[in-house]
């Protein structure tokens, strides 16, 4: 019975992946396919944020900068050079390399101090990137942004859907391996009691830097996919709303659970899509961000451990019930 309970999440995961694989064959709605593609991209972004906040306890107010770096690197390369898979890889590598550098420097400067210094520094640097993108009009076209062409493989919505599905699966597995590794356990220990982790001989700054860089790389990758999905970019990718989205997705899904981050991305993107559609018929829904804000308050007050935490609690309750029944049977 115990083994079965352990395997339940895996079976659910496989069922969802299978459903997603078959989805384009049973669905002919282009907008649903695009919506799911967006969910996969933001799921990667939310997971990257969860590595920082959920697993290491580092608060970032400027996570959008890594998303923006990845998005702009890919978009600028496509705009300046020919759009093919090689240039996509070049853009991706440049975005990731820049994110590694920026996250490492910010981490080195602020992670040895209390966590709010990292939050403040990331906020400041992300706003610097926003100003840079606004002012460097020759390359970024400022707030107006620019459109660009993408390789044929990415133009086809179905093939791009599968690419993002594969990406989210690969990133999930890699981040899962990372969090289950000995480094991941140290990060968890740091999030719960940094001094004690240090007293065990762990140089905590070193581990927090690893978390910061890992999160930056994953966020940059999601940003690159985002730019490709829109075939357009403007300075919005550096706005604080992008960071708040990641926070909302992670909190609603459940901190410290990668699957929760994916679920959170799904919930928020679905809500955003349907509420903005409702706004066409009912003007009251034009202020749909208020509804998201309300949802955030409800989750914080009612389900502080998020969706994943809530499901975990239910499963534990069920387990206890089964155990009690077994014990009663034994006594009888």
């Amino acid at each position, binding site marked *: 019975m115990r083994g079965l309970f352990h395997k339940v999440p895996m079976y659910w995961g496989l069922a969802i992946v299978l459903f997603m694989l078959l989805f384009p064959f049973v669905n002919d709605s282009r907008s649903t396919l695009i919506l799911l593609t967006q969910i996969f991209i933001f799921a990667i972004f939310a997971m990257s944020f969860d590595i920082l906040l959920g697993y290491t306890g580092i608060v970032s107010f400027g996570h959008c900068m890594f998303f923006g770096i990845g998005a702009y690197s890919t978009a600028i390369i496509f705009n300046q050079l020919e759009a093919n898979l090689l240039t996509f890889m070049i853009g991706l590598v440049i975005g990731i390399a820049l994110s590694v550098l920026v996250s490492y420097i910010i981490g080195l400067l602020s992670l040895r101090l209390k966590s709010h210094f990292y939050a403040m520094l990331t906020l400041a640097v992300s706003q610097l990137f926003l100003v840079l993108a606004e002012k460097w009009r020759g390359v970024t076209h400022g707030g107006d942004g620019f459109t660009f062409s993408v390789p044929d493989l990415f133009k086809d919505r179905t093939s791009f859907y599968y690419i993002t599905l594969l990406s989210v699966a690969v990133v999930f597995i890699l981040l899962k391996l990372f969090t289950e590794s000995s480094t991941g356990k140290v990060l968890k220990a740091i999030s719960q009691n940094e001094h004690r982790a240090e*007293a065990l001989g*762990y140089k905590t700054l070193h581990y927090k830097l690893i978390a910061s860089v890992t999160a930056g790389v994953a966020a940059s990758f999601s940003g690159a996919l985002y730019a490709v999905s829109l075939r357009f970019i403007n300075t919005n990718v550096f706005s604080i709303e992008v960071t708040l989205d990641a926070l909302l997705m992670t909190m609603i899904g459940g901190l410290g659970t990668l699957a929760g981050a994916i679920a959170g991305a799904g919930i928020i993107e679905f809500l955003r899509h349907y509420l903005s559609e409702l706004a066409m018929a009912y003007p009251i829904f034009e202020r749909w961000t208020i509804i998201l804000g309300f949802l955030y308050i409800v989750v914080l007050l009612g389900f502080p451990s998020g969706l994943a935490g809530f499901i975990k609690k239910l499963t534990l309750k069920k387990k206890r019930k089964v155990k009690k029944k077994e014990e009663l049977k034994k006594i009888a």
Partner: protein
Amino acid sequence: MSLLKLDNLETYLEQYHILQGVSMSVEEGSITVLFGRNGAGKTTTLRSIMGFNPSTTGTVHFHNQNISKLSTHLISRKGIGYVPENQGIFSGLTVEETLNLAKAKSAGETEAKMEWMLQLFPDLKKFWRKKSGLLSGGQKQMLAIARAYINGDGLLLIDEPSKGLSPIMVEKLMESLLKMKEKTTILLVEQNFLMASQIGDYFYIMDDGKIVHEGLMEDLKEDKETCQKYLGIA
């Protein structure tokens, strides 16, 4: 032979002068108890040794090596295990994960140390896969001590282990510390005189950030005046 030697240690916490020239030594293979009233500076002494509250002047020598300028993780790697006052449990990690973290940065025979700890505290084996945050107060204390013992190599700093435990648990803890004395040196901060006087070999009494008395535990038991003056024992 002195395993740990503090020489004229002075520590400030913000503008407060907490340790005002603390000098003491811990003999190898002994249990040395640091007594004192609340706010005397006992916990700060341990935290200064570990580098959490570094001293402004004075030195800390461990194995005749000056460790006073090292950062906490390097002090720990020298072989000093630390059990803080509030146990400092990683509540989201299981017992297994916690002890493996301690083992990974440990020196010496880690497997043997782990085995011995599980023999000494069988409850840890029983709740091997349980999240540490779900353990009882006594079990958490056992885990904190086992974690520090496995992680350290030769010296354990233990801060008020009997705090908040039931009398039975205190009795068990006392027996365990006595057994551990055969394998490691212990510097114990304790307010429970009854417990500490039964297991300690040497004692120091702190008052207002200074060492005011020191000697053999046997002598302190006879010294009613000192006990009454500094420890409030009639």
